């Protein structure tokens, strides 16, 4: 079990408007079972990326803790347990690294345990196959990848670390619909194969509903509501309802009755 307990985080803002502290997260608690997928939904500035960074141990909380199976984790021990895929993989790795080098780096841990060179090469190929790419991609550089390919390699890399949880921070947001479906499907598959748990951070309620078992709504640094995906329509808090309605409006394509509303509104 990955549990976030009453975590708080603030940043100092020493801008030209004078010093102050900006409270980003206020007592956020969240749990994610192994193999579970929890969506964290929020608008820009709601603190959702900060939450992801705290879970990854990229930053330290002011208060509260992140625990795995009850054990509080320091920066080092968390390595290997939680991994991440960010919005654009092309900008999150060294531009001079080939895909092989980037994936090899993720294998760092297992090389220590005495993997042969050939053995690790085989692992990289399997990892690529799992995300639907062939071996030729190993010699490519980040700029030679399309957005969807880059995200798939990011996923391959996260899976190679053998992490039990993966933080997906807007991992599909910049992709167009067909590629989004492709990557979301791969995430589903990987979860089936490895039992990996996901913390799916996004502003896209639709993508969250596609992948997640539960959805937590983050607003102004607090989780205001958590709900099972099947019961999404029963959200109660005003902000969450407002968010839901915006999405409903956006999906005029699907339910006919909403299409009628938008035509009227168009006048």
């Amino acid at each position, binding site marked *: 079990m990955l549990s976030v307990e009453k975590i708080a985080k603030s940043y100092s803002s020493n801008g030209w408007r004078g010093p102050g502290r900006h409270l980003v997260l206020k007592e956020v608690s969240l749990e994610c079972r192994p193999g579970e997928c929890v969506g964290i939904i929020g*608008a*820009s*500035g709601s603190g959702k990326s900060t939450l992801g960074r705290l879970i990854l141990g990229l930053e330290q909380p002011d208060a509260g803790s992140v625990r795995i199976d009850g054990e509080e984790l320091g920066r080092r021990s968390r390595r290997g347990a939680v991994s991440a895929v960010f919005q654009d993989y092309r900008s999150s790795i060294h531009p001079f690294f080939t895909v092989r080098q980037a994936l090899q780096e993720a294998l760092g841990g297992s090389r220590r345990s005495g993997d042969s060179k050939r053995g690790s090469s085989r692992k990289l190929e399997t990892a690529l196959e799992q995300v639907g790419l062939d071996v030729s991609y190993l010699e490519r550089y980040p700029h030679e990848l*399309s*957005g969807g390919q880059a995200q798939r390699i990011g996923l391959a890399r996260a899976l190679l670390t053998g992490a039990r949880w993966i933080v997906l921070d807007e991992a599909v947001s*910049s992709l*167009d*619909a*067909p590629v*989004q*479906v492709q990557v*979301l499907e791969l995430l589903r598959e990987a979860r089936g194969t490895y039992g990996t748990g996901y913390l799916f951070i996004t*502003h*896209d*309620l*639709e*993508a969250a*509903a*596609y992948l997640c078992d539960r959805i937590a709504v983050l607003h102004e640094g607090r989780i205001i509501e958590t709900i099972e*995906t*099947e*019961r*999404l*329509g029963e959200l109660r808090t005003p902000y969450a309802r407002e*968010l*839901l309605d*915006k*999405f*409903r*409006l*956006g*999906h*005029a*394509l*699907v*339910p006919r009755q909403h*299409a009628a509303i*938008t035509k009227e*509104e*168009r*006048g």
Partner: protein
Amino acid sequence: MDVLEVSRLSIAHAGSGAAIVPELSFCVKEKSCLAIVGESGSGKSIVCKAIMRLNGPALRQSGSIRFKGTELTELSDDRIRGLRGAQIGMILQNGMRAFDPGLRLGKQLHSVLKAHFGWSREQSRERLSEAMELLLLQSPTAVLNRYPHELSGGMLQRLMIALTLVLQPELVIADEPTTALDAASRQEAIGQLISLRRQAGCSMILISHDLSAVERIADEVLVLRGGMAVERGTAAELLTSPRHAYTRHLVESKHALSGRFVQALGGRTHAER
């Protein structure tokens, strides 16, 4: 009548001669909105830049682009510059990159209005505030005193729309105006583009791969693939009964994506209908 007529437009790399857009013809009817849909690399942005003559010397283009009867390809660079903004407006994807980071927004928007209409600072401010109020933007004066980095992407997008509303161009080219926004601001931006169309009474080219934006804003759709038009028709037609494999794939993906969301809300999914 057609506001814009593009015929036999072809664009190629000047060096290698490789064609990006082999040959493309389309037109935009007066006061209507044409959406150009296609995957990245299909040439949709390059076509619009060709209309505005914004492609660099590395690209070679031929063909005819007629705007209200005037052949744009024959105009001097100066004439084109006068046309941009005032006659043909452009709304870009990324507000953070479209504005000068070192200038207060009011000042840079004023410089545009001064260049086109010779307005004083007060006049510009007044007209901009009016436009911003029409778009339901709160406290316009405070916003105009800010620098771009102090505002969110959605806010900058709204300012671009407000400026376009003041300029009242005949034709607006909106290049992925909703892509860089988070999903909630996206819905607002769509609403604002709709009211821009209504208030300014302009024609529009909407470049997007966001089908829900296309459905709500556009009248007609052109589907581009590898620089070629593979399908065209009215928005309603294309989204309900797409013919080309790519368009079908696009529409189906959209339905697949929203399927579980719609189901969770108790609606019927596309597959069940």
